[in-house]
């Protein structure tokens, strides 16, 4: 199945957009994050913004890799990032629909754990981290693919 063409981000004031096709594997996500960091650095992103953006991209991409039900041979995940503030990230993938319960839970604020060490959570951080680090988060299921739009004001 041919992937649909990705419409360009409609942001006339932001000249450059980084576009990546990312394989469905943790190592491919790592390489993508390194490319994103490099592009942000070259475009003068402040360190604090760079750290937030790279972390948000890493978490969102790893969610697709781990929970999207895709194979390493699946069509690549596509990412677009405007290289200027406000930073817009768009991620498209052909994986499973994101459970609504997960999106709702991502709004839960982090609190200092009050439980015993053996009961500390080892997971469930990713979506809440994305939510905490983003100024806007939109998820759309469209024609069998997922589209995640994230804005970090910077």
């Amino acid at each position, binding site marked *: 199945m041919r992937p649909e063409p990705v419409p360009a981000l409609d942001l006339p004031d932001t000249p450059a957009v980084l576009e990546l096709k990312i394989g469905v594997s*943790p*190592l491919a*996500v*790592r390489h993508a*994050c390194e490319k994103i960091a490099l592009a942000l650095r070259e475009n003068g992103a402040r*360190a604090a913004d760079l*750290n*937030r953006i*790279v*972390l948000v991209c*890493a*978490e969102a991409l*790893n969610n697709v*890799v*781990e929970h999207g039900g895709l194979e390493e041979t699946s069509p690549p995940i596509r990412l677009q990032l405007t290289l200027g503030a406000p930073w817009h990230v768009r991620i498209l993938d052909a994986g499973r629909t994101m459970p609504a319960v997960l999106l709702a839970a991502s709004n839960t604020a*982090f*609190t*200092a*754990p009050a439980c015993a*060490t*053996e009961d*500390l*959570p*080892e*997971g469930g*951080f*990713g979506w*809440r*981290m994305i939510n*905490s*680090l983003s100024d806007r988060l939109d998820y759309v299921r469209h024609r069998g693919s997922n589209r995640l739009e994230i804005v970090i004001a910077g």
Partner: protein
Amino acid sequence: MELAIQQCGEAKIVRPEAARIDAAVAIEFKDLMRPVCAEADGRILLDLSEVQFIDSSGLGAVVAVMKMLEPPATLELVTLNPTVDMVFRLTRMDSVFRIHATLDAALAQDAA
């Protein structure tokens, strides 16, 4: 990933020789730490001075390592770079770990 391990008095300093503890190496990191934790009976100072980036999988792995320990063994974190520090603060996991700015500061304090 490799771990550099050094006994320093009663503390064991464990330094992951990796720029990233991310989803690609989180399981490997846990597997490498398992034997270290199994024989630990004092402080483990996890020196993160070489780690430039940690994601939620890496964070979960560090928590998992702490849960491998039997008292009186403890896990403390040392030398968090700004990005790593941000992840621990954001998730409030900074309240779960003793965190030291430098190895000298960590070694100057006792385990109490």
